[in-house]
């Protein structure tokens, strides 16, 4: 205590000066709104600079969390997008509430092959996350494949770059449907089989999922028609398509769960029996 008092006495002039200075500054700022405003302006400038630096330093460490948040948000948006795409092809149904049985789950792609004739992907979610075989998998701009088998934490997906997989597709304008098959060449080039030749197609039409398989909802854009030929005498088109999706560069995917899947399967079983 004695020491503090001594120090105070020793530095009494600066202490007194700064005390009175603070007093007069506060007096001055209370008196004049201009000074108050200017001071706040400089204060704001300084604090914004400071927060900018803090943000620039801190944002890097937050990237992972933000990434997760964005993925979550995308998952919800994807669901809305899918249900909207489903409706827009039936403009007269807008007013009626419609069942949309599809749910979306996000996943990271752990392994992806695209150079073989039969390619597979591995996702980091499995039966623990509610993934079951025969669920559709899409990415941000197109479809990826169909779940083939699941383990507890991982799932194996048949890529659409697989000669065995056929996906039901149609064009956005015309309701004629066909099957999308990989021709085995580059990862963009596909063929669409079984489109009847009386359908009105033109080059550059957008191809969307057909909604007739229980894997994908109707209306996910996949690619566009690059070449169109009528095969003489067969009654079918020969269609070449180019995909929007670059399947060699997929890091995130969304698994689509169809909650009516069992219902549809059991109906199909009844028919075959």
């Amino acid at each position: 205590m004695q020491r503090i008092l001594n120090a105070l006495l020793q530095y009494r002039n600066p202490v007194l000066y700064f005390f009175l200075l603070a007093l007069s500054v506060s007096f001055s700022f209370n008196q004049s709104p201009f000074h108050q405003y200017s001071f706040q302006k400089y204060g704001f400038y300084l604090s914004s600079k400071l927060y900018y630096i803090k943000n620039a330093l801190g944002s890097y460490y937050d990237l992972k969390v933000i990434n997760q948040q964005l993925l979550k948000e995308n998952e919800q948006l994807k669901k809305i997008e899918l249900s909207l795409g489903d409706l827009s092809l039936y403009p007269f149904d807008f007013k009626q509430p419609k069942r949309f049985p599809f749910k979306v789950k996000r996943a990271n792609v752990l392994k992806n092959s695209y150079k073989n004739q039969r390619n597979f992907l591995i996702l980091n979610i499995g039966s623990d996350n509610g993934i079951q075989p025969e669920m559709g998998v899409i990415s941000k701009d197109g479809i990826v494949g169909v779940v083939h088998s699941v383990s507890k934490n991982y799932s194996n997906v048949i890529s659409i770059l697989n000669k065995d997989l056929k996906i039901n597709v149609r064009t956005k304008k015309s309701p004629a449907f066909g099957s999308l098959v990989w021709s085995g060449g580059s990862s963009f080039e596909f063929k669409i089989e079984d489109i009847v030749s009386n359908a009105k197609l033109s080059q550059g039409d957008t191809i969307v999922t057909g909604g007739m398989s229980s894997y994908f909802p109707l209306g996910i854009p996949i690619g566009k028609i690059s070449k169109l030929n009528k095969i003489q005498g067969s009654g079918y088109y020969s269609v070449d398509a180019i995909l929007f999706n670059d399947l060699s560069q997929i890091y995130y995917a969304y698994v689509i769960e169809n909650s009516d899947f069992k219902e549809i399967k059991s109906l199909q079983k009844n028919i075959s029996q």
Partner: protein
Amino acid sequence: MNSFSPISIISFITLVLGQVLLFNHLHIFGSINPIIYLLFFVFYRFESNQTFLILLSFLIGFSVDILSQSGGAHTIASLTIGFLRPLIIKYAFGVTVETPQSYFSDSRTLNKLVFLILLIAIHHLIYFSLVYFSFDSILLIIKNMFLTLLFSLILIGITLSFYPNK
């Protein structure tokens, strides 16, 4: 002028009233009002109590501010001058045995001039910076500072010439 005497109180009041009633209304060349109360910092004896000077300098600036309804710039500027005065004295008169006991006990004209200019310049710089309070008007601040410095210096010099050197 000793630290606390009737004469010092009278001169204090005279300087404040002279500043507020007369010199704040001169408006030389439209806007220049010389500041006369800085004479107080010249009169105050060099070896007198420094803490008391800081209090007095706060008081004199505060009185001028209250009476002329200015924002508080006079208070801050004169308080700072009161605090910095020992440094200015050291710079102007040198840290030697010859350091004078008051402004009037020294006979070197140049040192006196340097002392006055430093005193007035620092005060005016702080005063005008606070009045304009913006980086954009820095040229205006400097212009006003030098012009007012000139007139304050002339007025203070004339006033001081009435007092004989002791």
